[in-house]
């Protein structure tokens, strides 16, 4: 693919040429009457989407239909083409295939479905009903827009993910790609660019929420040379995949954002710090950088403007703490990936002691959109102090898991119940953990809270990078807190005693409570320790790791007390703290529990009520699950 592009490339030699380039690429896309767009994100590929893609190409060819997989710059119309895309965000329904321009949205597509899809689309002008998304009421959604998961979203940053081919820069050109950079180079001074970012109100999406425009302004004013732009794609939060998906699905938008930032602050060099465990993202990133260079969008004399900037890729070893700004810089400099105390601003003395702008992947991806649509338009979305949209990865006990994007200020309820489809099996919602492992755990009475940086902080959680883990009544909050503290203890760099031994001591108390050895004074002890960890630790990992404990202690204190005083785990998670018993009045004597118990712990005879022998019971919960009469509690 790279090669085919090389043969046709004429580098852009003036920003004004970008308009013609866009039109040419649009025409090329339009010449194709039908496109079968196959999701080639990590999850869909794992589900076999590339086989579907190959099969589509083969079968279209076999039918004697003129098929193209590359954008054609010359020639007439083609009947159909197959093309890849990045992640659509709805990975659990993958592999996904969309038919364009109709927008028909097929999910869980298998290789065997390919003939039906082709006939329906090219011969019958119809749809394959059974591959359409099935709503909870049994009706089918023909296009993504009709699927509730997408209907409630505002996909702006993710707009290109799932709609364009991330491996072909010309597809990005066709959807206004690099128009923003052309506009900057042609019509805006670097000061204008920084001013526009400030006006947009864009805040960093990697966790801290620092205003991007202000960061750029400081770096622009700094006198050190050269200056650096770093894109943070370390993404170490378990379960989070927004940055990976953005790079896999629309790498050029991140690169364009970095180039614009470099122009604004006067930087010469850029680095993308990406997790080595993201092989597809790394591959697409390298491909995208090569293509951008070939078109004269990176390197010397960008678009003939005299502005030089190039980007290198640094593959991080993947420690969670390496995403922290000072650890990330140390790691690039070849030092141990440990946070250090820096009292100079990185915008003055950052990488190699030079002025540095460090922003997150999603932050950069917002930049071209802001330049194209204007800061005022951007600032019209969101809340007073949190503008624009935010990408979240929605996981846990929720019907629709996936990557979503909503306007800042959208309520948790809308995110979890409208977009997420609520809790499976109609179980009650219990809590949502926002902000990743060191975020907070929020209860049901916070569901109507609009989500933004400040609101989340106010209720004891944080935005973090946008992880959202939904929990139903089956989750034990003490156990949840224990899980997150264990993660932070493992990932602590180990320098500060407060963070390293403080988290170990917290874990010790939480483990004791889960084993039924908790004492009432433990709660106050944990609170004391949490405040010390926050005060005494050097970096954000330490200062925020108490959040899961403090928030659960605050919102779910009764559950801790149940563990400690009543020796009872209400969610039936902590094994020493609950039993399963048969409710004799409900038991219909069917024997299902008896037959399914893996531990021979149920006594039952025909026409007799079942009974559980506690000594033998391993508390697997299978009896409760299989009983059709709610007779096991």
């Amino acid at each position, binding site marked *: 693919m790279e090669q085919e592009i090389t043969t046709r490339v004429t580098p852009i030699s003036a920003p004004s040429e970008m308009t013609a380039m866009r039109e040419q690429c649009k025409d090329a896309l339009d010449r194709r009457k039908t496109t079968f767009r196959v999701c080639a994100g990590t999850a869909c590929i794992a589900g076999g989407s590339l086989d579907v893609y190959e099969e589509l190409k083969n079968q279209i060819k076999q039918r004697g239909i003129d098929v193209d997989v590359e954008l054609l710059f010359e020639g007439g119309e083609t009947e159909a083409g197959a093309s890849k895309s990045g992640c659509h965000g709805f990975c659990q329904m993958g592999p996904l295939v969309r038919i364009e321009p109709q927008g028909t949205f097929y999910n869980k597509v298998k290789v065997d479905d390919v003939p039906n899809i082709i006939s329906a689309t090219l011969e019958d002008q119809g749809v394959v009903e059974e591959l359409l998304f099935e709503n909870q009421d049994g009706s089918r959604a023909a296009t993504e827009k009709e699927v509730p998961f997408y209907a409630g979203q505002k996909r702006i940053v993710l707009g290109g993910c799932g709609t364009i081919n991330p491996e072909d820069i010309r597809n990005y050109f066709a959807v206004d790609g690099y128009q923003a950079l052309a506009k900057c180079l042609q019509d805006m001074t670097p000061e204008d660019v920084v001013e526009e970012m400030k006006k947009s109100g864009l805040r960093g999406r990697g966790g801290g929420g620092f205003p991007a425009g202000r960061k750029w302004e400081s770096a622009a004013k700094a006198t050190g040379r050269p200056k650096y732009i770093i894109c943070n794609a370390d993404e170490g939060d378990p379960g989070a995949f927004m940055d990976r998906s953005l790079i896999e699905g629309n790498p050029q938008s991140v690169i364009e954002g970095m180039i614009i930032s470099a122009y604004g602050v006067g930087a010469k060099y850029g680095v993308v710090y990406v997790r080595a465990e993201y092989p597809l993202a790394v591959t697409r990133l390298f491909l995208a950088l090569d293509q951008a260079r070939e078109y004269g969008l990176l390197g010397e004399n960008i678009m003939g403007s005299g502005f030089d900037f190039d980007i290198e890729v640094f593959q991080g070893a993947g420690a969670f703490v390496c995403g922290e700004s000072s650890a990330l810089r140390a790691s690039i400099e070849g030092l141990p990936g440990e946070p250090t105390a820096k*009292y100079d601003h990185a915008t003055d003395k950052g990488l190699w002691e030079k002025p540095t702008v460090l922003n997150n992947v999603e932050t950069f991806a917002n930049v071209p959109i802001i330049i194209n649509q204007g800061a005022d338009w951007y600032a019209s979305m969101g809340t007073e102090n949190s503008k624009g949209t935010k990408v979240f990865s929605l996981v846990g006990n929720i019907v629709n898991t996936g990557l979503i994007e909503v306007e800042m200020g959208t309520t948790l309820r809308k995110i979890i119940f409208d977009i997420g489809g609520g809790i499976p099996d109609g179980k009650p919602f219990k809590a949502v953990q926002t902000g990743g492992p060191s975020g907070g755990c929020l209860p049901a009475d916070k569901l109507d809270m609009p989500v933004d940086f400040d609101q989340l902080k106010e209720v004891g959680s944080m935005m973090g990078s946008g992880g959202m883990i939904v929990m139903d009544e089956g989750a034990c909050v003490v156990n949840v807190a224990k899980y997150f503290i264990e993660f932070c203890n*493992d990932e602590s*760099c180990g320098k500060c005693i*407060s963070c390293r031994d403080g988290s*170990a*001591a917290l874990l010790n108390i939480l483990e004791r409570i889960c084993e039924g050895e908790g004492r009432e004074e433990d709660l106050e002890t944990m609170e004391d320790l949490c405040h010390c960890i926050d005060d005494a630790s050097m970096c954000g990992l330490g200062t925020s790791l108490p959040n899961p404990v403090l928030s659960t202690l605050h919102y779910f204190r009764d559950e801790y007390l149940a563990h400690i005083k009543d020796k009872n785990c209400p969610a039936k998670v902590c094994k020493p703290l609950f039993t399963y018993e048969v409710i004799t009045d409900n038991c219909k004597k069917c024997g299902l529990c008896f037959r399914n118990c893996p531990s021979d712990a149920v006594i039952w005879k025909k026409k007799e009520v079942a009974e559980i022998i506690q000594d033998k019971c391993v508390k697997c919960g299978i009896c409760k699950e299989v009983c059709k009469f709610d007779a096991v509690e």
Partner: protein
Amino acid sequence: MVTFTLNGKELEVKEGTTLLEVARDEGINIPTLCYHEEMSSYGACRLCLVEVIKRGWPSIQPACLYPAQNGIEVNTDTERVRKSRKILLELYLARSPDSQAIIDLAKEYGVRDTRFKLKESERSDCILCGLCVRACAEISKRHAISFAHRGSKRAIQTPFEELADVCVGCQACAFVCPTGVIKIEEAD
């Protein structure tokens, strides 16, 4: 030069001077376990924390690293500092219950007991202050000692487990070790 206040007293010091250096010059006692005036500051023991009010915003900062700045107000012995310091000392007692140096230091600040418990594998008389690492690197210029692993598994890799040929046996590390865990043994 920068001007700021330390425990209510207005001071003028050279730019870049750390709060710990100023405090020591002023005869103010701040406990430390990972600081040595001949070496760079590292900031691992967290015992030197003080309260700094900058532009009206109070925060807790390590005195060994924090540079004196114009207009800040520093207090070395506030309620918040005392509380966090005591809890840190409790953590030290949990980590190194048998270290006399730790027991004595804790006692000095009124801490005789700890509410915390660490697993056997998490306890050690080495408090990971990194003084030996810096002594070897900065004073003896040998780089024979380093940190290894993350989180609770973090440990000092000494040349004494597996005699490193870079170690010249200068004993600088053993000399600076605050808990005396480093014992130099002559190799045959």
